[in-house]
């Protein structure tokens, strides 16, 4: 399993927009490179990144009416990557925090590659 990193602040104020940074270890072979034997290295890319947000258990009760539609594993951000993305794809995006939530980023790519990482953000 390749290494996956997800960085988000551990806490945020209600309504604050936080920066989320995600990194996964992956060669992102474009298919254009050749090995030392001269054989082309097959294309092997991370194709999609999806970030979901789910309220943490304790916060769910107080928040259903207040959340901006971020209920239970809703996708707030996604990306489709192509060959021109650098190896070990890095992505930084933003998220408005309303309730204490778990952010989960999932990567999916060629040859059945999957990985995921989670981070809890407490909203004070």
């Amino acid at each position, binding site marked *: 399993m390749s290494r996956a990193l997800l960085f988000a602040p551990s806490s945020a104020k209600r309504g604050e927009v936080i920066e989320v940074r995600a990194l996964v270890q992956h060669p992102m072979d474009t298919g254009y490179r*050749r090995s030392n034997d001269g054989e082309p290295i097959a294309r092997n890319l991370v194709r999609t990144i999806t970030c979901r947000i789910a309220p943490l258990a304790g916060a769910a009760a107080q928040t259903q009416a207040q959340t901006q539609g971020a209920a239970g594993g809703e996708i*707030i951000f996604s*990306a489709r*990557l192509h060959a021109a993305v650098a190896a070990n794809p890095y*992505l930084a995006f933003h998220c408005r925090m309303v309730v204490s939530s778990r952010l989960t980023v999932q990567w999916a790519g060629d040859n059945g590659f999957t990985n995921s990482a989670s981070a809890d953000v407490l909203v004070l």
Partner: protein
Amino acid sequence: MVKRRDCLGLAAAATLPPVNAAGTTVVANAFAPATSGAFAPAVQATPAMLALAQRFADGAALRVGRLAVTVEPLVDNGNSVPVHMTLDSPMTPDQHVVGMALFSEKNPEPHIADFVLSPASGLARVSTRVRLTGTGQLLGVAKLSDGTCWMQTVDVIVTLAACIED
């Protein structure tokens, strides 16, 4: 003119076009912003790049501006180049950025990435790292919830190109 092999190693000569070659199109008329003003920014991009932007816009009118594509003007290593895309939008359910796309002119496959945002994003700002094959242009397009599309280009000089190997 510099001859270099393309990424498939076919040893085909690919000449670097001079800065204002006839092949580039000055997009001042077709894509000028609708709002009147003393300064109407134009974007200079090849027809192929504009076609990619139009395909992403999917029929919406493409305008120049609002979106900022930020990258170092001179890049040492084209294998990993940080790029930021920012559009100032309130990100409310009524008015937010729906998606962004990034293209690179000189890469064998110019499409870099698509991003899908939502009002929960809070800020329409995305950063990633890209591979750049050669000195050329990056073109970013952002689609808004009201149906408009905004594009921006930025030129990058790449010292060590990705993809090309001896």
